[in-house]
């Protein structure tokens, strides 16, 4: 489905959140900020990660560089725009590991991540 490689590369500076300025070129009607925010949050979905792995993107060096670049979402002022903060940041962190990028192709791992994630989402609230 999406081809994030064409959106930007690690050579770029993170886009400004307040990119409402009309000077920035839009990509299909969306700013780079919007697209990257959506992409980084999609990474929270284990099935999406599996999908990316099945497209051999996770072994592509430039894609790995892009994942490294996306880490700017773990810092302010970008952090506060994440609406799925927990799973997003966890995925982003895991994706920096070579081992995880290889293993996520396994449906068992996807299943385990989903089960764990949905369990955790209910459990942390119970404890509190």
């Amino acid at each position: 489905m999406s081809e994030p490689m064409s959106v930007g590369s690690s050579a770029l500076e993170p886009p400004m959140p307040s990119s409402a300025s009309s000077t920035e070129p839009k990509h299909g009607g969306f700013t780079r900020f919007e697209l990257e925010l959506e992409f980084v949050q999609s990474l929270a979905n284990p099935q999406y990660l599996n999908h990316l792995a099945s497209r051999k993107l996770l072994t592509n060096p430039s894609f790995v560089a892009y994942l490294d670049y996306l880490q700017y979402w773990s810092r302010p002022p970008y952090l506060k725009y994440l609406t799925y903060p927990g799973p997003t940041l966890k995925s982003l962190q895991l994706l920096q590991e070579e081992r995880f990028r290889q293993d996520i192709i396994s449906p068992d791992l996807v299943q385990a991540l989903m089960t764990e994630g949905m369990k955790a989402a209910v459990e942390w609230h119970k404890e509190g």
Partner: protein
Amino acid sequence: MDKQLDALFGRVEAALTTLIDSIAKYNPSEKLADDLAHADRALAQGLRELEQHQANHARIQQLRAETAALDAQTKDVAGSLWATRKEVDNTPTTTYPADSPRYPFTIADLLGFARRISRNTLPPPGVTNGLDLSAPPTQQSEVTMDGTATPGASFTSGVGTPGGGATAAPTPDAMVSQATVASSVPEMPMELRHAVNPGEGAVFIPWPTEDKIRSGALAEYQRLVERGMDPKGYDPEEEEQRKRDEEQAKKEAEERARLEHEEAERRMQEERARMARERERARQEAERRGSVAEPVGQKKSQFSFIDMDDEDDDE
């Protein structure tokens, strides 16, 4: 106290002995009996004192014990205070490296963030993802994910394989849970359950679902690429705006043309009217000239009867 009592006992004994002796000698004396009585009273007094003494002693003992207990407590408190203090001193505090960035934020920021993420981080009431059944909560989610899978996507293909196994596993547990529900809430018909608990069977997914990803900006981007357009610099909104502007311009041009046409028409009509008027005037002029050529008095009398006199006077 013991000596005192011993003395009192000795005195009673001595008095008794002397009295018995005197009685044995068949020489009783009233004085000796009195002595005995005195000694006995003294002994009784002594015993009362002893009782008092014992009571006091017990009280002292009790007080001492109390003091000791309080002392121990005080020591305890002091000790725990010391230990706590030591603990507090030894507690490893998070030390932020001086060079690490600090990000100031306001309460409003924090609350805004909390409000935005709560929808995706807090399960709605009653939705437990099947956690209480201690079974993998994947049954419904599998159905959802597979159900929404659109053809031509390999998105769920990888998950489909274990899905079959995973869906089979929780079934017994789910049945057990339904059995327990049925026993505690007698005979709730399936179709009413949803009305009672809207969260029945609902699943909370803490990440963007495939649906959301498919309906997002990236999917839109992909659709543009598939249509053979370069999304870079392409903005449907701007396109729309441009189209609207063009249409607007076209409409305006039409309007202008129409107005011009009307204007021209109007002018032509005016022209025609003016020409008609001029013709009329010319005709009148011609008529007047003609009438002027005719006898004046007759003509004048036709128009101004009153003026006639003045004019006549003037003339």
